[in-house]
């Protein structure tokens, strides 16, 4: 009777240990996937903003484009030759085409209360491309 009881307890302990190992493995995987997803999102956002700037460079003056940033802690840094998009701990840099159009250096932090999304307005005026947060209108 005692042997059967011990055997039952051992079985439970072993199954619990295995379950914990599986859980740990799954959690690790989830963290890896989350970080990868955050990085991919940074890549996509950087590419999309640089695409907008590249197209605006060949557009006529007074052209503009509105872009919605993700509802997360992010920093968009635009320099005269590249964009750096930081999302959480991940960041991605993307170059854009250099033409006679000037690009105004700017840094936009998209930390919003209650996870609302920041909206970006990218405009071309007098040969200068400017990105700023949309408050009321683009102009």
């Amino acid at each position, binding site marked *: 009777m005692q042997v059967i009881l011990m055997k039952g307890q051992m079985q439970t302990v072993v199954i619990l240990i295995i379950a914990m190992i*599986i859980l740990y493995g799954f959690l690790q995987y989830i963290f890896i996937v989350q970080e990868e997803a955050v990085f991919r999102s940074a890549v996509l956002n950087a*590419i999309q903003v640089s695409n907008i700037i590249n197209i605006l460079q*060949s557009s006529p003056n007074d052209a503009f484009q509105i872009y919605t940033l993700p509802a997360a802690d992010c920093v968009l840094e635009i320099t005269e030759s590249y964009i750096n998009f930081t999302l959480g701990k991940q960041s991605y840099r993307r170059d854009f*085409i250099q033409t006679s159009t000037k690009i105004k250096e700017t840094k936009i932090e998209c930390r919003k209360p209650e996870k609302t999304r920041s909206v970006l307005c990218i405009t071309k005026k007098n040969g200068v491309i400017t990105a700023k947060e949309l408050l009321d209108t683009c102009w």
Partner: protein
Amino acid sequence: MIPAGDNVQEQKSFLSNTVYLVIQIVLITLFAVIVLYFFISSKPVLFIKHMESTALEISENLFSSPLTKEWAVFSFSQLNRYHGKIDEPYARHCSIAYRLEIESDIRKWTLGFEPNRGVNPATGGTPFFGETHLGFLNEYTLSTASNVDGKPARISLTIYERSLTHITCLIENAYKMKSKQQITCKMPSKGYRTQLPNEMKEVTCRFILEKIGSDMCIGHPDFSFEESTIECRSLPGINVASFAEKEEVDVITDMKLVAIPLKTFAPTDCSSISDDIIAGKDDEVGIVVLCLERE
């Protein structure tokens, strides 16, 4: 006193239960390992057609550039001005170079980045860029119909992403931003390099770089600069110290290629760069120095 038969029966039952338990544990563990393996070995991959979109964006910018009289109508005189030059006028992308070929019924113009300029002295002048491990990354060609001074023409815009384009971009950013810039590069192993043909799809750390006139030229470290494969990209107005990395490694290693803008005009050894000679936001950049650092 327990009868002998009962004792044997109990021992047999205990043995079979133990064997059953061990088999159960082994099976569960095996199942767990297999499930974990499948989960951990899978990784999400995102394919972004960035070469296609970059080619389109460069073409859009060229179509509305001073190379044209009106949208997509190229000017004969402007094309003559840049014909045969490796400058990438009016729509220069930092890390991707372009080459434009325009062919009308009358003549053909080519301008922009020229790949495969060098030859292999060992193979009697046969171009060997693919075997040099200088880092060939991506290439994409966009072909479309256009117009030169009212006459129909065919346009072929090829964009190149290579080690050289990333290195010139690194130098350009360090110069313009007046701050240290870095990229990850791969130091190819000797074994990897001897497996020919074998193109490296990463920015290489093993190359020689020299500025010739206003062009930045990359060469193969196993040959002298004059005789090795040379590929050049125009980078006017920026002084760069010559760079040569000929180190041999046993295993392919990730390293950091760092561009440091200095106040001085004299090339400086990487080990002797102190903070007081690194250019800041208010300083004029004299020269950009390339250094390799371990990751």
